[in-house]
């Protein structure tokens, strides 16, 4: 499923060494798990982006400046 070393891919996605029982899965299973974890991270990033934009629409104009300031580095 694409990766040459699925176990290393999983470790890279997790940024941690997976437990032995997980590392013993087949290459296909490891690749699927890695993809699921990667998808979850990407989905979280996309949801944060959309939520941030939506939230600004609900905040009173007067408060948008100070909020932007706090959020500044992230936006």
């Amino acid at each position, binding site marked *: 499923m694409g990766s040459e070393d699925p176990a290393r891919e999983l470790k890279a*996605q*997790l*940024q*941690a060494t*997976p*437990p*032995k*029982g*997980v590392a*013993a*899965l*087949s290459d296909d*299973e490891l690749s*699927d*798990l890695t993809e*699921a*974890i990667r*998808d*979850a*991270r990407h*989905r*979280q*990033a996309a*949801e*944060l982006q959309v*939520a*941030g934009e*939506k*939230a600004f*629409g*609900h*905040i009173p104009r007067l*408060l948008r400046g*100070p*909020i932007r300031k*706090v*959020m500044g*580095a*992230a936006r």
Partner: protein
Amino acid sequence: MTRARSEKARPDAERAASASQELRSRAEVAKLARLLGRDPGELEYLEQVAPDDLATLREQTTEMLFAAHDATFKRLATSSKLLPTGLVSMLAQHAFGPVLSARIAGLLDPRRAVDIAAKLPVDFLADIAVELDPRRASDVIAGMPPEHVLKVTRVLVARGEYVTMGRFVGHLGDGARDAAITDLDDATLLRTAFVLEDRDRIDALAELVGEDRIASLAEVAEREQLWPEALDLLTNLDHKRVADGLGRMDPEDRELVELRAREQGVELPTVAA
């Protein structure tokens, strides 16, 4: 006095232990699937992995997801201090949704978070509960008033969210925990106790199961095929209480419990003749 476990029961015991591990692994896969936004069926291959390893994998995944956007979550929590709690609760519902709200909850001042929660509809709170990592929001959970916890618990029971409840029990305040557990029906109690996140906390839950409830737990275990769950809980109860509870049962019902225990390879306290 008779021993409930015999040499002959060993093969059954091994089979039962394996069945119990499988049930636990399945519960762990359900938790991980939720975290990953996948259907548990898609991760079925993980059911062959030991539950402790799956729990570690879930914790690693949770860590990674929090670390990936840690700075943003913190800024969101900080900026929410500038807004009134009513507006924050509105943003939680209409902008952030349950997943992101659950990620941010543990970064808020616990008292303020409890105030915000009080302004949220119970169904939405239940949605957040499902997504929350209770260890990261323990102070918020502990600060929730019992009546509010009870309402959320009822929604979770209606949705069959035993796994979520099992994750929360150890973090509830004493009053909230007692109110919630007392309110659970027997089948829900068994299913929840079995998937309890912090197994050490089973004592706290077991404390609330009186000997009078043991007979009804056995009845529901037989009716709904919940013997692994029932025996798991019974072996964690005070032995004297279990013996008293068994002693109060009809001999026929008691024999059934002892038979099921033998089948599962579980040794129950003996009943004084």
